């Protein structure tokens, strides 16, 4: 018999850093965000001031809320591509109905398509097991079609942006954008829901192992229907905020936010395969994308080049991030 007894080899410094990062996945994200801001400051000294911060927050917030929809659905292994259409519909209906209606009625009318689309998404995915990508893409197209029909009926009455949404979307109080009044409670609620409520637990469980959740007594369709309705409601509210920021109702208002919202969730460390991630990472992901956009804009590149670069950077960041936090 041979006894073997040697000391384990010391762990290298690089590996220790990697492990530290793996245990705290937010830190590399925050570092990246700071680096981007520093680069911006170097390229345009003095650009990073109070006004710039408020502006960045204003544009990051709608993206961050929509990315919240993606985070929640991605945790279950799904995705919600209809958020852009839902946000646009709510915004457009609000802007046109406010002309003749009581604000409360206009608001309810604006949220109605959100609830409907969420319900249809949820039933399609949860009951009929349509793949979320197809389901939400389908309802998104249908919603856009309805919106075009609707537009013809209100063409005569015109549109306006309610003062309150204007104030919420663009206003700044003591250097803080008013949109934070909406965003902070929403963010706190999402984080709380994901970590401290039964529903949040089920999102993770269903996304990680649907069969295990079923064996524990979870009814998949209930979770999924509730999830997609919630996602749509958030998207609808985002639409109202966004119209206050952009101030020009159009039929493709929030559409450009859809894919960035997915990217923000992925950069923030939420797995598209489900079961893993969280909202705090997503918020930083949304900030990173917003700062990145600013950075590319001040480089004064042509639009095409900017997009190419944007795509490459998103891919690179995601790949690098996963390498850092995944300790295989």
């Amino acid at each position, binding site marked *: 018999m041979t006894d073997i007894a040697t000391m384990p080899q010391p762990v290298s410094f690089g590996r220790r850093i990697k492990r530290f990062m793996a245990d705290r996945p937010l830190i590399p994200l925050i570092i990246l965000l700071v680096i981007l801001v520093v680069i911006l400051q170097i390229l345009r000294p003095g650009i990073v001031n109070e006004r710039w911060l408020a502006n960045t927050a204003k544009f990051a917030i709608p993206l961050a809320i929509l990315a919240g929809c993606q985070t929640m659905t991605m945790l279950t292994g799904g995705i919600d591509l209809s958020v852009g259409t839902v946000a646009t519909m709510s915004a457009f209906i609000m802007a046109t109905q406010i002309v003749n209606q009581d604000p409360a009625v206009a608001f309810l009318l604006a949220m109605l398509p959100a609830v409907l689309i969420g319900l249809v998404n949820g039933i399609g995915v949860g009951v009929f097991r349509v793949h979320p990508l197809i389901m939400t893409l389908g309802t998104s197209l249908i919603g856009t079609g309805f919106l075009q029909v609707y537009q013809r009926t209100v063409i005569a009455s015109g549109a306006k942006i309610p003062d309150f949404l204007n104030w919420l979307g663009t206003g700044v109080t003591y250097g803080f954008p008013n949109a934070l009044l909406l965003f902070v409670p929403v963010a706190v609620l999402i984080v709380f829901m994901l970590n401290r409520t039964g529903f949040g637990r089920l999102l993770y469980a269903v996304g990680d192992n649907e069969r295990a959740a079923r*064996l524990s007594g979870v009814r998949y369709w209930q979770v999924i229907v509730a999830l997609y309705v919630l996602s749509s409601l958030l998207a609808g509210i985002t639409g109202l905020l966004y119209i206050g920021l952009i101030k020009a109702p159009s039929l493709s208002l929030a559409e450009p936010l859809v894919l960035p919202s997915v990217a923000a969730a992925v950069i923030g460390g939420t797995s598209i395969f489900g079961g893993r991630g969280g909202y705090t990472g997503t918020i930083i992901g949304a900030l990173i994308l917003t700062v990145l956009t600013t950075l590319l804009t001040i480089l004064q590149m042509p639009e095409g080049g900017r997009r190419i670069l944007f795509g490459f950077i998103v891919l690179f960041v995601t790949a690098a991030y996963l390498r850092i936090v995944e300790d295989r």
Partner: protein
Amino acid sequence: MLEPRTPVLTTNELPKSPLLDATGVAKNYGAVAALRNASLSVLPGEVHALMGANGAGKSTLVKILTGAINADAGRILIRGQLLDVRSPAAARRAGLLPVYQEPSLIPDLDVLSNLRLTGTPVEPFRAWVRELGIPNLDIRDTARDIPLAILRVLDLARALAVEPDVLLLDEMTAALPANLAEKVLEVVRRQGDAGRSVIFISHRFVEISALCDRATVLRDGSTVGVVDIEPGIEEKIVEMMLGTRIEKTRVAARAANDVAVVGGSRPRLSVRNLQLGTKLNDVSFDLANGEVVGVFALEGQGQDELFATLAGSIRPTGGTIDVDGAPVKFSHPSDAIQAGIAYVPGDRTEALAMQRSVRENIALPFSAGLRKWGPIRMRREQVVVSGAIGRLQIDTRAQGEVQRLSGGNQQKVTIARWIAANARTILCFDPTRGIDVGTKQEIYKLLRELAGQGKSVLFYTSEMEEVQRVCDRVIVIFGGRVVDTFPVEEADEPALMRAAYGLPRGARADVGILADVRPASDAEAAS
């Protein structure tokens, strides 16, 4: 049973160079060290056992050797050449081939396509399949439709067909019916005789002493010794595996005073004429409060379907289930849970959310109902969960993600969930598959304790000795029917075996005939 093998090699007459030589292998998952300092040296023509308790690092070492994961430190030499196993393909090129515990054929492809995928030559594969005791496999069958036991044998045949220099078998005989296990062991032995090496991981000493030349013993991620397998070495190996926590390894047969008082006039669970297509036929039995009823069957006799039906996963096509005297109809597992019936599947990956924490996994049923979607009372949950963790002595060093736990600890989590939920009836399907001796003992003890508290347990096992250790009664299923019921005192191995092969009580049967009986396919043919 197998005759002990005459050792062909001992440490005294080592050939100069080992075929595989791994030293100083280490692997960390976050702050948890899965392997600290493992070494393994395998000689040509040797069948080498790799042993260790739960979480000692066996699986991690195997995964590193086969390139499934990368080591943090260490050196692996194969035929004296430094091997950089960065991927399973690299390990394969170097002649290292694993057969894992979980079947690795792609479920949606037929067997032939699976073979093409790995470039496995078909004819040698077929030859091995026949050799391993499956005479009439149709390689056009989709892997999904093939029973688990057969799939594992196909995995082995697929590995053998490419003639690997080092074959790595992880719990190869677990969950195999006796006739197939016998063939597998025979083939492994012949590999050694033919000058090829086999690394053999098993918890069964009978197999190890019959097959292996030497054993490497791991404890807490380090190699603690290499021993020659000779008569009487078991005690020493167990001592090495357990290290400081030396316990008596032989469990006393169930003490008489431990037999639960089977109380109550009304059975807890009463199954009558249960029917499920052709899989279950007229199944009737009772399960009393405080009783552990064993279900014994060869692979694929309808036991999977019986448990799934009782758990509410499948709806029966006929028959009745009564709980506490009242008829029930389960259309979803949550109905069964509502009735206090919990199901612990044999396959841990079916029961666990692998990326989630121990706590979330145990507390999962608490959030299941619509009314429990609101805020979680974290402190109360913590108390309940840690109570269950304590009761099962789950190793919580890696509790952040269940996938980092060892197999035995994962299995404990699946049971702890229902201890925490205070389920009155637990359906345990082969809960000790592929886990180490120590944990097995703990699970037996726990099941008896539950029965002592008046809970009832239905316990399927593929190991005969477990029946005697844990159960009060045994029902034997063959071809979807309950063919016999024994009180535990009468459930000796010959009696159980005969019943499991569908032979009437008292009939004479010798192993030669038994080996030819193919109950799984008979049942299919009958359907």
